């Protein structure tokens, strides 16, 4: 499911309005690619035996991978990654990535606040796996025209 409104503008935005919705699929390949690109080689993100030995339910996605992907629907809606001026998340639940089936991560982005005097909006992200939220207080501040 993809729904994009490109070239988001401050005029006409309303609190609660959904500005983007997108689903992503993470496979083990996604994790290995992120490990290489980011330099985070913690083996709990690619080795089942290590994940099991520290009591995890399976290999986990890097929290920073989930954070990095979750902002993308907002970047696409705004059209310019340089307009993200602040981005924060809380890692509330691990994302387990099945070796065969991977995992689907859903992102819904809606307007949390309009900051007209700063030509900005706060976009709140709802990031879920199988209907369960995996990030808390996921907020993106974007500069809009």
């Amino acid at each position, binding site marked *: 499911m993809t729904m994009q409104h490109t070239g988001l503008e401050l005029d006409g935005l309303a609190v609660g309005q959904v500005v983007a919705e997108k689903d992503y699929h993470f496979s083990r390949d996604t994790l290995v690619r992120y490990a290489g690109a980011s330099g985070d080689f913690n083996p709990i993100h690619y080795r089942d035996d290590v994940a099991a030995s*520290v009591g995890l339910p399976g290999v986990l996605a890097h929290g920073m991978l989930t954070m990095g992907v979750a902002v993308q629907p907002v970047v696409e809606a705004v059209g310019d990654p340089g307009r993200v001026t602040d981005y924060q998340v809380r890692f509330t639940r691990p994302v387990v990535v099945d070796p065969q089936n991977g995992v689907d991560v859903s992102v819904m982005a809606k307007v949390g606040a309009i900051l007209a005097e700063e030509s900005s909006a706060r976009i709140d992200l709802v990031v879920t796996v199988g209907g369960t939220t995996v990030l808390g207080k996921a907020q993106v501040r974007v500069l809009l025209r």
Partner: protein
Amino acid sequence: MTVNPAIQGREFPPVPPYLVGREKVREFARAVLATSPLHHDPDAARAAGYADVVAPPTFAVVIQEATLAQLLADPDAGIDFSRVVHGDQRFSFGRPIVAGDELTATLRVSSVKSLGGNSMVTAETTVTDHDGAHVVTAISTLVVRGDE
């Protein structure tokens, strides 16, 4: 091993400058499934007013990482890495990171708190460019689980 509360307020020396490469920006963008042409195409980035390709917002973690490694390696801090869970993360930008930037990062421990046997360490990394101008502040809260 327990976290030393006296590290609150401590500032570490800056880590060696990080030169942001165009291919690294592209590689990181692919890894976070970022599709904007501004990450990949220098002409598109220039047309949008940037000197070169623009890094995805969370690319700043690559710069921040060396400073967190400094904190975790400090025996005086008393942080057992095997007990660390990433609690939350924030990036506050002065401007976006673009390829060609030479960035210097400095970590300061802004707070150490105890909560139900765990420690919460908040580390604030300030990233500046070649001219000393602020680029981004990366803030991580690390939850260090107490001895069981």
